């Protein structure tokens, strides 16, 4: 039996990266992910791997750009305000087709916001948060085990598709401790060759490599973006991942990722004890999003309740998925329950929101601001007074 070790989510991300063959890490301190650079410093410096505490997140992502261009498995990590600063660099990485791993252990915003867990960066992560037309893969771990496993796989996906892969966690996932079985460390010699990377040109005599995102010829730039979108199509066809639990038996499916999927799972268990069947659908890839799976449920007339730590962001992807089914929105209504500001929804309030949906007491979510509310218009309790 492989040994289980007790770790924080942030540490499991770091160890997963090291085992995947990450040899270059660049970061700037920010709560709630600071254990991650500390872990990297502790384990990389004695092994003479590249660890740099950068002067800013802007510098860190551009160091990743250089290290990735030179062929290393490179990574940076931060939390929401810092990830905003990285967006310029992420756009350039996507424009230059460079693989790397970027970790966002989300906290609440906007602005400096708070340091408690949140999921308000979903749009930024899944819609290409910087300038220009691009996407990149986004993976959402729900526990410490997935922190290690998804980060480990993220490096393979990045190399395979030549693009950044983002791990979208939140402060709760990053800070909590759980047992984890770590993946076996990669032999660096077994990593895929990168014939496009710079360096050692003299040894092979290959043509010179130029890593760049510039192209001033409209037709050429249009074609290169278009070609990249062909790749996106292939990714959407092959890399979508999700987990469904009890969705066949239930009329109402709770949808959540990361921390909110854990809470939704708890609410599902409470419901079961009361004799109510609820389903749980958890996207593991937020981009590409499992639209087809949502559409299939919609075609069966299921109802959805999205649980998020935001004003409602992933819910728009669920609505898109329902739209793809051809079923009318009334036949497969999408409801929303959210907490934010660092508040984490609790199982009781999610269950109450689910009962409201089942009893026809709440209105479906609509894109826009007309009927916007955090859920069912109910009086929401304070996390703090509950001692969380």
């Amino acid at each position, binding site marked *: 039996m492989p040994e289980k070790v007790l770790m924080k989510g942030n540490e499991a991300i770091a160890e997963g990266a090291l085992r995947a063959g990450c040899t*270059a890490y660049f970061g700037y301190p920010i709560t709630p992910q600071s254990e991650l650079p500390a872990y990297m410093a502790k384990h990389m410096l004695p092994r003479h791997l590249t660890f*740099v505490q*950068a*002067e800013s997140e802007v510098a860190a992502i*551009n160091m990743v*750009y250089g*290290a990735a261009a030179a062929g290393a498995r490179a990574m940076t990590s931060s939390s929401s305000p810092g990830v905003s600063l990285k967006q310029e660099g992420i756009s350039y990485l996507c424009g230059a087709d460079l693989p790397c791993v970027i970790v966002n252990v989300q906290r609440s915003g906007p602005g400096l916001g708070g340091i408690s867990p949140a999921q308000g960066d979903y749009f930024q992560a899944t819609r290409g948060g910087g300038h220009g037309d691009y996407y990149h893969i986004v993976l959402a771990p729900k526990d410490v085990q997935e922190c290690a496993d998804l980060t480990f796989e993220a490096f393979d996906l990045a190399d395979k598709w030549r693009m950044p892969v983002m791990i979208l966690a939140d402060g709760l996932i990053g800070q909590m401790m759980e047992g984890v079985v770590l993946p076996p460390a990669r032999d660096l010699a077994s990593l895929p060759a990168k014939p496009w990377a710079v360096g050692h*040109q003299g040894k092979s005599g290959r043509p010179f490599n*130029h*890593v760049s995102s510039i192209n001033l010829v409209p037709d050429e730039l249009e074609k290169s973006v278009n070609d990249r979108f062909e790749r996106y199509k292939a990714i959407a066809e092959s890399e979508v991942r999700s987990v469904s639990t009890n969705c066949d038996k239930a009329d109402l499916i709770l949808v959540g990722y990361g921390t909110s999927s854990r809470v939704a799972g708890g609410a599902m268990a409470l419901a079961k004890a009361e004799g109510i069947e609820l389903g749980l659908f958890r996207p593991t890839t937020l981009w590409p999003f499992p639209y087809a799976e949502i559409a299939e449920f919609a075609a069966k007339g299921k109802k959805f309740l999205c649980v998020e730590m935001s004003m409602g962001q992933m819910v728009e992807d669920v609505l898109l998925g329902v739209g793809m089914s051809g079923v009318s929105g009334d036949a497969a209504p999408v409801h929303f329950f959210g907490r934010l500001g660092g508040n984490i929804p609790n199982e009781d309030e999610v269950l109450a929101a689910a009962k409201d949906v089942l009893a026809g007491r709440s209105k479906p979510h609509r894109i826009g601001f007309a009927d916007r509310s955090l859920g069912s218009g109910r009086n929401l309790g304070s996390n703090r007074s509950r001692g969380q």
Partner: protein
Amino acid sequence: METATYKHPASLVPLQTKYCPGCGHGVIHRLITEIIDELGLQGSSIVLNPVGCSIWADLYFGTDSVQPAHGRTPAAATGVKRVLKDHLVVCYQGDGDLAAIGTAEIIHAANRGEKFTTIFVNNAIYGMTGGQMAPTTLIGQKATTAPEGRDPGEAGMGYPIRVCEMLATLEGTRYLARGSVDSPANVRKTKQYIKKAFEAQMRGEGFTLVEILSPCPTNWSMKPNEAVDWMVEAMVPVFPLGEIKNLLATDGVAKAGGVAGTAAGGKK
């Protein structure tokens, strides 16, 4: 008797450049590539071409290249050099790239003692975007964004930044020199500075930077020969030429410790 034959450097791609007549970038490319040839490093050199007129450097350098975002050149060069430690890494930057948008990146790369060489092309103007004020624009010098000339007084436009002198206070810096391409003699001297810096880099000594005063006749609204005269008369007094700091272990003038504020200390 040895005879030197004038040749096109192997590391310089035989292309007509996009640079304007009288531009300094082409001469500076030539110096860099001559030295890359002399050191036999064509197959193990990486040039980081900045955002600025020399964004085209990757067309002209017969080496691998990496093109980062505006001003982030030293951060990207840090990433490249940390991975390719035995390569020559050249971080090529203009004054806007280095001394305005990328100030944090250059200061911290210098302070960490990153072992790449920065070639800092100071033409006292934003060339690529059409003649806006640069951090190195002289007081009174006209720019599209300083139509009456740079005014540090009421208009609050600040003063020309002396990059070498500023970086000299940082202990990570080992070699900081300022050359100019106004005359054959100064071109030769500049070449010596670059060569010293590259050799120091390959020995892993620490941060090296060569600033080069360079004409931009187009955005100075001058003829090429007038631009050269203006460099000598107006720029050199503000940006004195020479080795501003030299703590290279093998250069005979090494001073132990690399003390801060050595602008005068290392100067020859």
